[in-house]
């Protein structure tokens, strides 16, 4: 069969199975503007910005047009330009533009297009935007209806990918607004704070609840010691904000940047990821041995935990009681500066976690994350917020030398770093259980079906006389599909890993928004960071002896496990 081709702007554009003309154009280097299209969501065709002109001189939306052999379209004819201009002016009339002070300024697609297509005059009075109040109920996300242009990306993300449907189109015509039902606030809905809606929002209608001023205050307070931990995925998302390739981890530069920012102590969450695996595999093997109800679900992801609490409360007893790596390192940091381990104690310690995640902001506030009367984590900043902080401090990540995190909570193995990608926690558990560090054994594990960005993966692992059925889901919609199969008895699993965000933490709501191709590069970067580690098994982490003997001193379960109320229902 000969190659299929269509003509865009006089250029021959080969295509295969692209879902629309917009994708064909993109793959051939032509960027057609669009505000309501996303490669991972259904096609809506509502914003009318991607209109192109066909041979008959008729305008049609490129996002809803099937590519066909010999099709001819123009993307910047006079007719197209005129329509695009008017469409932008209409969109601007229903958008409260406060571009100088808007959170999204510089990242706003409407702003970008208005500039790119030279919309220098507003034409229509800016009078149809919503006057509904700002929704600041969620510790993770802020919703500002006055900036919403009704593209519906968030609606589709929340219902199609996450299967939650916290927000939807409500009312009609001029009064139409994307909102939770019955005038509720986000916090009163099934929202888990994953931040995927904000990641796809083209304007500032849905934004991360940023806490940058708080961080500056602490950095500039001479009476505070700022102790920072950073998650596996931060080292693979941050680089992109500084024009560096996505497929290389920037751990060393990140540590240097944090020190230049004024951070007093830098630790790596990878250490507690190793620790999580030690605790979680012990808990899992104990459950298998004692005949407890399986599958056991992982517990690292705060979005997933909230989803269980809100949508599947009956499953909570099957969720591991292990705290997340962030919680565990938070607990270790408190111990590190207490109990005579540090001359000054931990009263002046301000514990900050840099996370790829918006839901972590909620997790850190939970009452269960208070131990010995103290909050384990004082502040959670996202990768995006860290990038803004560094830029404000004039730190150019690209040109920094590498440095190492502080001892003794900076050591880690490859098992900890792969937490950042879907399947990583599971792979680390398998490494721990099989306890074989030979390259052959590691290769077998890597190829057992645990790796890859598919939404649901299922496979079997044999460990001695145990044959374990394992499933990995990323995205809450996929998790719900899996749960349905387990609850209906259609499938059986011993262990299920769930990460709320598509592709796992590398695609977290706190990361710079990224295309699928970009996320694939981030996954490569995570495995490169794993390759760079000499030690691969969590049990090889040299700091574990110190952690268990000197810091935890028999309090491991008390400090490293979190019992949420629903864990112990009758």
């Amino acid at each position: 069969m000969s190659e299929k081709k269509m003509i865009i702007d006089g250029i021959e554009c080969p295509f295969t199975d692209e879902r629309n003309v917009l994708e064909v154009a993109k793959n051939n280097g032509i960027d057609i503007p669009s505000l309501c299209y996303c490669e991972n969501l259904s096609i809506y065709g509502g914003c009318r910005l991607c209109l192109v002109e066909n041979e008959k001189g008729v305008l049609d939306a490129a996002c809803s047009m099937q590519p066909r052999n010999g099709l001819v379209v123009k993307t910047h004819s006079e007719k197209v330009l005129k329509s695009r201009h008017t469409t932008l002016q209409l969109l601007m009339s229903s958008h409260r533009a406060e571009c100088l002070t808007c959170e999204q300024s510089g990242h706003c697609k409407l702003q970008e297009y208005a500039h790119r297509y030279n919309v220098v005059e507003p034409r229509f009075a800016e009078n149809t935007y919503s006057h509904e109040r700002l929704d600041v109920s969620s510790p993770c996300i802020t919703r500002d209806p006055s900036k919403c242009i009704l593209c519906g990306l968030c609606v589709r993300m929340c219902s199609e990918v996450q299967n939650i449907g916290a927000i939807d189109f409500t009312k009609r015509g001029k009064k139409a607004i994307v909102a939770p039902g019955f005038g509720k606030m986000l916090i009163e809905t099934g929202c888990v704070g994953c931040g995927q809606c904000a990641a796809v929002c083209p304007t500032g209608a849905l934004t991360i609840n940023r806490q940058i001023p708080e961080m500056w205050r602490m950095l500039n307070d001479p009476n505070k010691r700022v102790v920072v931990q950073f998650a596996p995925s931060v080292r693979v998302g941050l680089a992109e904000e500084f024009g560096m390739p996505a497929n290389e981890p920037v751990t060393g530069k990140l540590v240097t940047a944090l020190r230049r920012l004024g951070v007093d102590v830098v630790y790596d969450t990878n250490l507690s990821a190793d620790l999580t695996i030690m605790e979680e595999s012990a808990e899992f093997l104990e459950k298998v041995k004692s005949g407890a109800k399986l599958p056991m679900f992982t517990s690292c992801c705060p979005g997933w935990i909230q989803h269980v609490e809100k949508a599947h409360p009956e499953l909570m007893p099957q969720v591991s009681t292990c705290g997340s790596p962030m919680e565990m390192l938070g607990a270790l940091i408190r111990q590190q500066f207490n109990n005579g381990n540090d001359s000054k104690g931990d009263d002046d310690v301000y514990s900050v976690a840099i996370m790829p995640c918006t839901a972590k902001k909620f997790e850190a506030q939970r009452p269960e994350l208070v131990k010995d009367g103290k909050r384990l984590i004082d502040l959670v900043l996202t990768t995006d917020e860290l990038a803004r902080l560094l830029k404000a401090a004039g730190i150019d990540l690209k040109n920094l030398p590498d440095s190492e995190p502080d001892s003794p909570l900076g050591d880690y193995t490859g098992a900890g770093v792969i937490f950042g990608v879907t399947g990583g926690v599971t792979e680390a558990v398998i490494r721990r259980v099989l306890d074989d560090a030979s390259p052959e054994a590691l290769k077998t594990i890597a190829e057992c079906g645990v790796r890859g960005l598919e939404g649901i993966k299922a496979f079997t692992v044999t460990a001695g006389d145990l044959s374990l059925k394992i499933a990995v889901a990323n995205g809450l919609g996929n998790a719900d599909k899996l749960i349905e199969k387990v609850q209906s008895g259609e499938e059986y699993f011993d262990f299920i890993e769930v990460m709320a965000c598509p592709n796992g933490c590398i695609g977290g709501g706190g990361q710079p928004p990224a295309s699928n191709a970009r996320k694939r590069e981030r996954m490569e970067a995570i495995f490169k960071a794993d390759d760079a580690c000499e030690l691969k098994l969590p049990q090889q982490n040299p700091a574990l002896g110190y952690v268990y003997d000197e810091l935890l001193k028999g309090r491991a379960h008390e400090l490293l496990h979190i019992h949420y109320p629903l864990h112990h229902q009758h």
Partner: protein
Amino acid sequence: MENVDLRFIDSVLDKYGSDKAKVIAIMQDVQEKYRYLPQEALEYIAKKVGMSESKLYGVATFYGNFSLDAKGKYVMKVCRGTACHVRKSSNVLQAIYDATGTSEHKPNSDDGLFTLEIVSCLGACGLSPVVMVNDTVHAAMTPEKARALVEQLRGEA
């Protein structure tokens, strides 16, 4: 406000097989009983048909015929279409406002008996000016007839 009878909602859901595609019919049946859509009923329906609350709320608020606000025992629809207008329906409307203690911005009377709605045409222009009370049409209205109608309804309540 009345309490929602979940057994009644269940019977409506059964009638339509709890089918997501039939939520409009389900909501119509519920509105027929309560004269509006109580929030509790909608939340229950959303759960039972497997639809998000926000989506069902979106459908309910899209259609002008669904109401999420409680209504009085008598819903009075005063026609302000062209034919009724030229035959002085504005005077009829004002008379009803005065008699029931309602206004343009306060459609419900304090005694919970009356809800006033302005409609654009009831399709009975030959009978203008027209006022509809629940399912009954009252033709060739005058302010006097309107006041008498309100009194009569009050007596029946």
